[in-house]
């Protein structure tokens, strides 16, 4: 089922559509949210809540979603990521270091960061497989080397080696910025 078909299903039969959507992407969204929610501080129920919030937010904003601009999958991932970050920021459990808590950017810095982000994404893509997948799983999904190894059919040590090399490569490209 492609995204347009999924959207039609969501409009026509919301419960079925949501059920299908949840079946397809719960695991991914859980990983995305967990990547930002420390397991020692946040239980599974709190991550599940973020995942459910992401699905319901997406459904409630269906009319504004443009399937030609991005995929449902990435849209959901971004919602989940941001909700997880918000939850962590607003939680009393969080113990942010002072410099991170006061992490505000000037307009100039913000522009720089956007450019840096766009370039980083491009360079991660340029790493090629499986390195780009390893980095995304490691730094976006927050997966352990063991989980990544299992998903990609590699050994954990191979994942660690490739991660290290890929990060070194990025550091070289960005002159130490990452």
């Amino acid at each position: 089922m492609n995204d347009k078909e999924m959207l039609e299903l969501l409009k026509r039969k919301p419960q079925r559509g949501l059920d299908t959507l949840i079946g397809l992407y719960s695991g991914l969204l859980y990983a995305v949210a967990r990547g930002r929610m420390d397991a020692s501080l946040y239980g599974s129920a709190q991550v599940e809540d973020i995942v459910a919030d992401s699905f319901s937010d997406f459904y409630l904003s269906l009319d504004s979603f443009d399937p030609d601009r991005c995929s449902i999958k990435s849209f959901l991932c971004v919602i989940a990521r941001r909700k997880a970050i918000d939850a962590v920021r607003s939680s009393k459990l969080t113990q942010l270091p002072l410099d991170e808590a006061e992490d505000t950017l000037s307009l100039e810095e913000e522009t720089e960061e956007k450019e840096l982000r766009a370039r980083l994404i491009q360079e991660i893509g340029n790493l090629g497989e499986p390195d780009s997948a390893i980095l995304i799983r490691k730094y976006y999904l927050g997966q352990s080397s063991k989980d990544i190894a299992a998903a990609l059919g590699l050994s954990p040590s191979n994942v660690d080696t490739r991660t290290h090399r890929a990060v070194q490569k990025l550091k070289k490209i960005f002159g130490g910025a990452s």
Partner: protein
Amino acid sequence: MKKTVSQLLDGCEPHQIDPLISDIDAELPEGADIDNIRSLTISKVRISNSRRIRRIIAIAACAVMLAGVLVGCYVAEKVDYENAVEFFDLNDMTTDGLSRSDIKRVYRDISSESFEYDDSYKLLSESRDTDSVEGVDIRINNSVNNIAAVPDNLNYGYSLNEAHGDIPDGVSYTGDYYEGADADAFLTKSADGEVKWTTHFKTMTYSDDYYVVGGRVLITGYVMYDKLHDYMHTCLALVDDSTGELLWEKELDSKYHFDEYANAVLTADGRAAVLTIASDDRFSGENHLVFREFDLTGKAVHEHEQRKDDMYYSFNLTEISGGWLAVYNAVTESSSVSSTLSTVPHILVFDSEGVISREWDFSDFGSDGSADPSCDIESITEHDGRIFVAVTKRNSTDLYNGMDIEKMLPEGETFASFSDKARDRARECFSAVLYVFDSASAKPQQFYSVDGARALNNSLKITGDGSLVWSVGRIVRAGWSPYTSSFSLYGVTRRYDYTFDSDNKLLRQDRTDKFGSFTTL
């Protein structure tokens, strides 16, 4: 300030990460609960929708008030009088012997709850006599829950295609609602795991419910046009059950943008009746209820449209002598402070041409004094001059208000899935209720109630000897999902069958070995 790779990725826009995650998937880890995610999501969506409906109601109320200011005194008096007459009609109160001003005075007196006018009490007392109906609370005989007997693999999710009619064991119908970009819907019949036939439809884009009666299968579905939902019309198709031959297929070509399927029924002689809800804007509040009947060849023999603006859902249509009977749930605003809406069952009686001849609701029928009980209709049938309506009644506790559920727990208890306490609290939330009405007068006769249970879909059956069998699902295992502002209940029910004789007398209670799932949506 240096940022890590992870921090930089936090700010990604969806289109930026699209190419990087397109091939990445992840399984839910052990310990994560997809049922919880599903329940939470549905509840959150439901609450948001309820709030949207409340906003619509508020806007509509403001519009009515504004219109009232603009209308002159003469018109106001006329409207006042008409409202009063409608109020009298709705409450079975007679206007005999009352002047025009008396009628208005009684109406204002009652609706404002002042009760300063002598005739008000008298008229109310007379009208309420009809509601003095006996109710029977049925107790579950077997108190053993036998939780271990519940199948472990029972699916808590939602069925895709809903089946109606008597389908033999081993036979199944699978209606796929999508098959690629250009293909239409299809239905497959299987018996004992072997595919008997597959029928592709010509117009229908998605198949939905199906009804198997008298050697034929009626399939309902939709055709959607272009650009995601600008137009959506109901489709019907009749298929020969033995060969799979498509006998006819119809798009209900409405003049409205949306003509949404509400319910259908297939008779033993091959006639099909369908109710749809037509509108140009699903959220405008302007709805039209359309009744259509087709003969065996697919020729439309009756079609009638009537304006009905209720926020309704969950229709159930059946044929009765001299016409058709429909029950639906109408959404009404709850008087509680929460955002949840109540639902009240309404009954419509159609004549043979599909014109509504009578209608009434039974919001206060069998009231146990609880505030705003919500009733969801599961099944209706008519037999021997009586109308039977099986509903699931939710008690006054607002299931979507976390505070209300929280109050139900003993102090210091935490929420846990599938605990005895969760089951007991879940039982307090539901009753399966069977209402009995006189067909001719529409007067209520009796009701039966089973606490801690839900009425089951299509649960009313007339046996060969004329007895009525009512099936309910007793909650035997339950859990609930807490989150920021709402809760969902979910779990397993065991089916109990109740058999009544022709005098509405309960003959027996049978505990079956059949289980079903439930969830509060």
